């Protein structure tokens, strides 16, 4: 393998790796955002803490989340 071929091979690995990482990254970033969303909805709509319940009371009823 000549010097230039070696350089080419290194160049391709350097190019392909970040692309692959970017695709995996997109999925995991989307999942992270969705977990965050579930956490926010769960806190507002389902938390058993009295103060949270009272603050979000009308919203829980209006969204038909189980309440009381």
């Amino acid at each position, binding site marked *: 393998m000549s010097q230039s071929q070696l350089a080419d091979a290194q160049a391709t690995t350097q190019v392909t790796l970040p692309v692959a990482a970017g695709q995996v990254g997109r999925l995991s970033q*989307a999942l992270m955002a969705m977990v*965050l*969303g579930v956490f926010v*909805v769960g806190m*507002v709509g389902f938390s058993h803490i009295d103060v949270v*319940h009272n603050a979000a009371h009308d919203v829980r*009823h209006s969204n038909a989340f189980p309440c*009381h």
Partner: protein
Amino acid sequence: MSTFRSIVFASVISGFIAGLLVTVVQQFGTVPLILKAEVFEKAAETHRHDAALAVQPAATGHDHAGHEHGAGDHDHGAGAWEPRDGFERNAYTAAANVLTAIGFALLLAGFFAVRSGTTGASVPWHEGLLWGLAGFAVFTLAPGLGLPPELPGVPSAPLLSRQIWWLAAVLATSGGLALIAFRRTVPAAISGVILLTLPHLIGAPELANIETNVPSSLTHQFVTAVTVTSLVFWTLLGGLTSTVFARFDRSAEQRA
């Protein structure tokens, strides 16, 4: 972290708009009905409370909140902080609506990111609207069949059991819809339909007999108001989130 940032920005913007708009809609639809029902609820509560005091005069020295919890199915405002009626209460309602909308928008935009990542094109607004309709089916229609929207003052099965059934209905419905929409084979469609019906075959937890002085006409109005409000909310959120996310995502790609 550009995708994550695009999702969060898009969700905060669309959630803020949808949450505020739905707060306005609720002021005409669900909130007046909740306030009406609370009049009946408070009347029943004082009645129950007086009866409890008459039976156990020694209990007066005890912690009020604990007493209420022991007495029944209700933790309504006993001891714990609650917003004052009027502006304060509505402000908290608006904030909770915005947060809920942002949370659901994060879910939607997460799907949009995965979807546009595989197809290579961003999700257009009318497809976003369909995703919103799916959200309506998953988070309102399906759980609402077993656990219809309830007014304050209507007794129901223990909270945790209803929350578990609600979550199970949501998971089964979303799984069923996904199988039907994305697999597109006969066995997948059959298992999808089975998943859709399963939570209702099992049945939601309910009380054997329900005694309430909240009129059933009020409950009926409330079910309609909640369902229609939710339909508006979900279509709005689906359309908005897909549009805003597509814009952020494109600008993120251009910068990268």
